């Protein structure tokens, strides 16, 4: 189970909490707190295990990642600060609708391997965000530009806030933000998302550790499995077609959107 979560998470640039939390609580009867803590630590495992292969292939755009991490970490911080003052149900519905919309967009562009011609905005040029990687599937070097740099940062802020407020959505908002808004190639988006989620999860995990929510007997085997899965998944991902990865991503984004809206409506 944990290895599977690691593979899925690393291929799609997500944390894998979607799989781990329900599996631990429903199948293994672990308490929600323990499951969330184990899942947070395993997000770090997904990120760290897969990033090695992505960095070597230059799929990860480290400059974009550092720029956007400011947004996610500031967002997570303010999310934690204002948690409890905001209407959670409203947030679930809002973020659910946002996800549904980006799922729809992703479905429309499901066949595109690469984003086509992108004109970088001024900030992107100034920060030197353009990147290139060797795509093994296409057998060629892909050069790309990044645009809408500032909107991207703002979206990351909200993605971080959502993670801080609702405890979900480590990667599911990041990938569409980079793919659809900043117009990065899909593979570069998932790899960069994968790289970033480790940092946000680490600050959350420290807190869970301090509270004693991280149970070694539960977290240990899960995290080891995820770590191994992530290493395998990353090797698999660089060989997959973009359209294949997208096809895997779309059902997950739709599922998460429905789940969030349902939670919001049910209350």
């Amino acid at each position, binding site marked *: 189970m944990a290895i599977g979560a690691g593979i899925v998470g690393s291929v799609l640039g997500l944390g894998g909490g979607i799989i781990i939390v329900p599996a631990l609580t429903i199948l293994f009867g672990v308490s929600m707190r323990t499951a969330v803590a184990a899942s947070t630590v395993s997000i*770090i495992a997904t990120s*760290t295990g897969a990033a090695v292969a992505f960095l070597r292939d230059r799929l990860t755009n480290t*400059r974009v990642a550092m*720029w956007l991490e400011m947004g996610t970490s500031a967002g997570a*911080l303010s999310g934690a600060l204002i948690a409890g003052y905001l209407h959670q149900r409203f947030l679930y519905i809002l973020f659910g609708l946002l996800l549904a919309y980006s799922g729809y967009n992703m479905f429309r562009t499901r066949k595109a391997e690469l984003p086509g011609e992108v004109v970088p905005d001024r900030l992107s040029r100034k920060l*030197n965000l353009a990147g290139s990687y060797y795509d093994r599937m296409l057998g060629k070097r892909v050069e790309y530009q990044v645009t809408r740099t500032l909107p991207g940062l703002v979206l990351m802020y909200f993605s971080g806030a959502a993670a801080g407020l609702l405890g979900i959505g480590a990667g599911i908002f990041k990938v569409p933000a980079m793919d659809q808004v900043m117009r990065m190639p899909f593979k570069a988006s998932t790899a960069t998302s994968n790289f970033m989620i480790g*940092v946000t999860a680490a600050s959350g995990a420290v*807190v869970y550790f301090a509270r004693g929510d991280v149970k*070694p007997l539960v977290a240990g085997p899960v995290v*080891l499995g995820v770590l191994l899965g992530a290493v395998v998944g990353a090797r698999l991902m660089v060989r997959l077609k973009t359209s294949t990865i997208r096809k895997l991503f779309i059902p997950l984004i739709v599922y998460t959107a429905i789940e969030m809206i349902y939670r919001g409506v049910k209350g």
Partner: protein
Amino acid sequence: MTTETHHETPSPHEPIELVLARLLRIGSIIAAILLALGIGAMLLGGHAVVGPRLITAGLLALLATPIMRVMVAGVIFAREKDWRFAFFCLVVLCSIVAGILLGHEHGG
């Protein structure tokens, strides 16, 4: 600010991706070994304290890796006189620390 730093341009230093890749690999190998040893110790039914301790050490090693990654990236950017990005790393580190302190308060 210079306009180079494209991946292909020869740099006196190793590319940042490779340095970070090595750091993350070392972190995950250490974590994996500690976790495997800990789980192994528990399965063999050895000392009741040793297994969980090893696992906790492995989890902590894993936890430290991304934070180290931001620090090392900051140092590399500073070494390349890319002050803007070094500053970005600093901002990220500060929010992580603030988040941890805040979480402690909330957690009691």
